[in-house]
């Protein structure tokens, strides 16, 4: 009897060999099911990410991967396709044996429509078989890499096939939902209701790959691992915050989707709002997922909702026409494949928000995002107030405001702009830049965002995923703008050249307040 007690105690005790080992390894066995397994996202990002997690020895010892989509193919066809995808898109190069064979043996495929309950029952059978043969212990992660219109249906079918968490005898179930979560506030709420019937909030992982980027995570480190920024991180010292997510690419074959979305839905409502929340939030009491997400939600819920009649004053939109990007001619948005030739969808959006709380009262947050702009450039620029009284500087010397810039991509890093005396007998002042660059400073290359985020979901760490309350709050903030823009469709698009800084109306929005956008 004593031996049995000792055995159980030893089995329950933590593995003593794990102490001190720095490992990202996921220890829970699990199956991951990719819905939309024939799609581009699965081939370009998800399966290469899984394979690289395997190469990094981060996946658990016992794991299985199941692809689910309409196309009719066998497990072997699916493995061949995924090998091609890895060969083409994996950052670690082509798949090689013996690791590839071990990985391939764990890949299975179910063909079926999302309407077809029998296909979901077949999925259940495969999951049960994996539990038995691969030792995956009943743990399941469902990844909805599909158009948002079928999210609700897939979740319903999971429940109908007995694959919902409530039907589970053992193990855990989680679901990863790709953005966009809804196309407006009402559809997001409807989707949440559907998904919420099957999964609890703590089981839903809304993915925003921006949050998996290292510099985005470093915003928290910059703010809360340093003492020098926090005392001045408020309305007393900060004049304004500009958040920019600029792309040089056009719609890249996604014209059909994008023409129904636009820049506000595609970028501002999710990526850019998440950046705003990280800049504006109060210090969380711990790095625990819910503590961080509580603070992000509070910041978003303090955003002042723009009345629809104020939208023309506080927001601007644009659509690119033909132009030159990186020296090459590109077509205008309306000439892109699958785009309505008379489209009034915005490919550029900017908006001014304010946050009504003690920290940020009256500090404008200017957000902008657009396609086919001059450079690929994402950053958060915090501009501080002017000096209260000028004692230095000859006539004509410009005393710049100090600016702290968190550079998200490319050239990830942080720079601080401050004033210095130009050497010489006179007290001439000029702005100078102090730069920190991740590549130079640490000399390490971070794993791509999808690897980080899929790994986190398998571990059950929701810190970098967006909680429903924040999603809802972000929709509430952009809805008046979407409503106003959908009503006032007679706009003179295109109104900016591809390869430019964006439309003049965006400049006018800041000029009216005595400020200007940072150059892209």
């Amino acid at each position, binding site marked *: 009897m004593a031996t049995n007690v000792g055995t159980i105690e030893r089995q329950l005790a933590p*593995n003593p060999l794990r102490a001190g080992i720095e490992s990202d390894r996921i220890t829970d066995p699990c199956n991951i099911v990719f819905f939309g397994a024939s799609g581009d996202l699965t081939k370009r990002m998800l399966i290469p990410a899984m394979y690289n997690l395997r190469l*990094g020895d981060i996946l658990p010892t016992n794991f299985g991967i199941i692809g689910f989509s309409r196309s009719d193919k066998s497990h072997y066809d699916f493995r061949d396709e995924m090998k091609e995808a890895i060969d083409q898109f994996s950052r670690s190069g082509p798949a090689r044996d013996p690791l590839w064979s071990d990985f391939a043996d764990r890949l299975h495929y179910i063909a079926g429509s999302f309407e077809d309950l029998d296909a979901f029952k077949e999925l259940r059978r495969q999951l049960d078989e994996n539990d038995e043969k691969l030792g995956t212990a009943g743990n399941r992660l469902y990844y909805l890499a599909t158009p948002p219109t079928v999210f609700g249906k897939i979740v319903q079918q999971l429940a109908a096939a007995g694959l919902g968490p409530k039907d589970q005898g053992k193990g855990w179930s989680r679901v990863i939902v790709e953005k966009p979560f809804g196309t407006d506030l009402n559809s997001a709420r409807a989707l949440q209701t559907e998904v919420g019937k099957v999964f609890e909030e703590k089981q839903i992982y809304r993915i925003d790959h921006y949050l998996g980027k290292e510099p985005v995570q470093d915003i928290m480190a910059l703010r809360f691992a340093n003492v020098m920024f926090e005392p001045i991180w408020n309305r007393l010292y900060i004049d304004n915050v500009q958040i920019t997510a600029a792309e040089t690419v056009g719609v890249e074959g996604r014209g059909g989707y994008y023409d129904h979305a636009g820049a506000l839905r595609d970028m501002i409502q999710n990526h850019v709002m998440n950046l705003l929340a990280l800049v504006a939030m109060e210090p969380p009491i711990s790095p625990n997922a819910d503590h961080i997400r509580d603070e992000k939600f509070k910041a978003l819920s303090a955003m002042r909702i723009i009345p629809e009649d104020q939208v023309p004053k506080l927001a601007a939109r644009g659509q690119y026409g033909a132009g030159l990007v990186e020296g090459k001619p590109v077509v205008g948005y309306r000439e892109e494949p699958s785009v309505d030739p008379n489209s009034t969808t915005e490919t550029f959006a900017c908006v001014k928000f304010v946050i009504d709380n003690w920290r940020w009262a009256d500090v404008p947050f200017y957000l902008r995002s657009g396609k086919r702009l001059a450079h690929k450039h994402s950053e958060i620029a915090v501009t501080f107030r002017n000096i209260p009284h000028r004692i230095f500087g000859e006539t004509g010397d410009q005393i710049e405001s100090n600016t702290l810039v968190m550079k998200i991509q490319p050239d990830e890093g942080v720079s601080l702009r401050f004033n210095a005396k130009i050497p010489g007998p006179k007290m001439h002042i000029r702005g100078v830049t102090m*730069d920190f660059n991740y590549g130079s400073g640490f000399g390490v290359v971070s794993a791509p965002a999808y690897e980080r985020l899929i790994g986190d979901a398998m571990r059950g760490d929701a810190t970098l995923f967006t909680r429903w309350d924040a999603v809802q709050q972000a929709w509430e903030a952009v809805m008046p703008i979407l409503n106003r823009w959908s009503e006032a469709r007679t706009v003179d698009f295109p109104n900016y050249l591809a390869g430019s800084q964006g439309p003049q109306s965006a400049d006018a929005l800041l000029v009216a307040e005595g400020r200007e956008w940072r150059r892209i």
Partner: protein
Amino acid sequence: MEAYLVGSAPMHVDSVDDIGAILEQLRQSRQAMSGTGGDGAPRVATMNFLVFVDDPAHREWVLERASAVAEKHPSRLIVLDSTDRTKGVDVSLSTRQNGGATVINERVDIGVKTLGHAAIISLTQELSVPDIPTVLWWSGARFLISRTFSGLAHSAATVLVDSSGKVRGEETIRELGEFLVRFPNVALQDLAFMRLAPWQEMIAQFFDDPALREDLFSIDALDIESGSDAEALYLAGWLGSRLSWEPSGRDTFRDSRGKTVLFTKVDKGDQRRVLSIVLRAGTSTYRAALSDADENVVALSVEGTRAKAVRYVPLQNIQNTSLIERAILENGRDQIFETSLRTVRDLLG
């Protein structure tokens, strides 16, 4: 974005006596390079990186890796060359574009073969950039017996050594054990121990399964095949320290229940490489061995009562350059390494 070289400016100073001249050369070079590095060419120095080398046969190996690390982690690299290859002082600067930033790397190579320890230490201190950490990579044959080593280690935040290799023996590990006592405020890193991280991870993986964990406490034999002693000793020391084994002889431990664990070390294969680890626990045998098909893959298997199919796992991070980088990025002392080292020291007696 990959770093690329945009300019370099080598210079030579005949005598090491005139520190002022060397510093002036550095200053002038930096000024000259700022023209090629763009507007104002910022200097980014994350550390003073001191590299001591005294073995002509090993010199190129060390310097090649030191350069690779220094270029990636902008630093003032000071090479203390105790072979015959460097005469006087060579000063060189290179600018690199790295992720949009212009970075200047500074390097000073000093021939120290004819210099006494006091001169080397003084020279090094004067050439080091103040207020940034100093990392000492000591590739010399002996450690504490060298007064130069002791002097340089005193001003270092991190000391990096490699106790692996045929020329090094048990005496090296004894010296490292003594180092922990004499330099409690300096972080010691041994590449030989760091190389074992993937093996430690793989052994730990066997026992992540709660059903197998019981066997961890009934191991009666440990066999390690390795190309050099240090890796095998460190692995045994690490397991011993994690499982509360007391060294009871040069090749035995006593486990927490008082039973003997036999340790067998087989010298086989290339230097700095572990070939296999076998743990025997009652009727089960746990084996991690390099795969025949790919030397960067390890086959994990369990035979006997708790038999499991062979599983292949990649062998991670075995590049020496990346190990050196990791040592530099580590912040503070590594308690797991230190307890493993103490266990090895006790095992050797």
